[in-house]
């Protein structure tokens, strides 16, 4: 546990320091959401209807933006070699890295949501619903994205490859995240059903993500 705690603390510390990249995701999220009302126009009803989808798209894209560095930075400076060699199971180390990444880059998105909800004409209930779905859904984006990040490291070309690999897998999360938010705001479906599926997707990703990423890293290092 000391080892995993140390890994989480280190990753969060690096992310929060200057040039760490945690803020880049939040800034990108802010930019996308702030620009949207200007692009859509001053139709308040339309903004309310599009609000949850816009927030979810912003969160999805900004998580793609920051996930790229999840393993690449450690690979470039040789830390990844030592992590693979260590006595800590690689699966747990991967899970710890993803958790640290989510705390530094995913959680700020959830916290920023209430502020951005104002710009999209969402009332308190609606904003709360979207924030809750993001809280439940963004871990899934991180843990699924981790698989792509691990593959991108082993193939030596990140960036676009990551997006191509991860986006199809993220689509279910997006669908149920937005569906749950819409259900809370306009109905007629109950909030519980899509939200449960969203939570299930997150739980599945907690299991599959670390194992897939660890397998990829083990077989792909050279």
């Amino acid at each position, binding site marked *: 546990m*000391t*080892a995993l*705690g*140390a*890994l989480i*603390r*280190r990753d969060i*510390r*690096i992310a929060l*320091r*200057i*040039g*760490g990249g945690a803020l880049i995701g939040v800034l990108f999220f802010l930019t996308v959401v702030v620009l949207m009302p200007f692009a859509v126009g001053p139709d308040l009803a339309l903004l309310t209807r599009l609000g949850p989808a816009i927030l979810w798209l912003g969160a999805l894209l900004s998580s793609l933006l920051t996930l790229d560095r999840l393993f690449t930075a450690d690979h*470039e*400076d*040789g*830390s990844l*070699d*030592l*992590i*693979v*060699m*260590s*006595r*800590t199971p690689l699966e747990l180390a991967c899970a710890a890295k993803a958790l640290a990444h989510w705390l530094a880059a995913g959680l700020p998105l959830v916290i920023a949501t209430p502020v951005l909800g104002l710009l999209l004409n969402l009332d308190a209930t609606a904003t709360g619903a979207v924030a809750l779905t993001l809280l439940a859904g963004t871990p899934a984006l991180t843990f699924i994205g981790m698989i792509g990040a691990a593959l991108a490291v082993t193939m030596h070309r990140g960036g676009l490859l990551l997006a191509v690999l991860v986006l199809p897998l993220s689509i279910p999360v997006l669908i149920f995240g937005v569906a749950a938010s819409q259900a809370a705001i306009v109905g007629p479906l109950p909030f519980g059903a899509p939200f449960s599926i969203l939570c299930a997707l997150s739980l599945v990703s907690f299991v599959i993500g670390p194992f897939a990423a660890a397998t990829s890293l083990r077989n792909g*290092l*050279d």
Partner: protein
Amino acid sequence: MQLSPRLFGRDVRCVRGGREVFTGLAFEAGAGEALAVTGHNGAGKTSLLRLIAGLLLPAGGTIAIESGEGELTVPEQAHYLGHRDALKPALSVAENLTFWADFLGGGTIRPIPDCLAAVGIAHTIDLPAAYLSAGQRRRLSLARLLAVPRLLWLLDEPTAALDVAGQAMFAGLMREHLAGGGLIVAATHGPLGIDTSELRIGN
């Protein structure tokens, strides 16, 4: 009676990118012995170290430690010091070393300031690693070997970037490690300053 640990490789074959680097390689080192891996550039010195470290899969043959620590695999009993320093420029010297001590060792055996003093960079303890010179970075990596005890040291050009005093200091550290029953496999071009048996790859 506790047998002393022994590292051996038998008939090791390495293939990189479809090209055979070496084949039929055999080596052996007992407790307190150092093995210097030599050979021309591209002969496969780094590849051999990474094979032992479990970072490359051998195309054939076996590498193992006899009478090592319990059920641990070879990589889990080894320190790997590669070309890259595994340091984060955003973190301070102490933070970098504390992290590796906690992550690799689950709590330090030797206090961090002691380790830094042993490699001669105690005065940089609060400095961000970004401001270290190449030689200081190398010394900080060496401090990692001291912070967490491991049976086997895998060193890839360990004296690169070290000044003369640093090389002497490092030779002393290696002698201590060997005297404590450790093993060293080092890829090198120059003399290490300790007694080694040579393993030559290629011709």
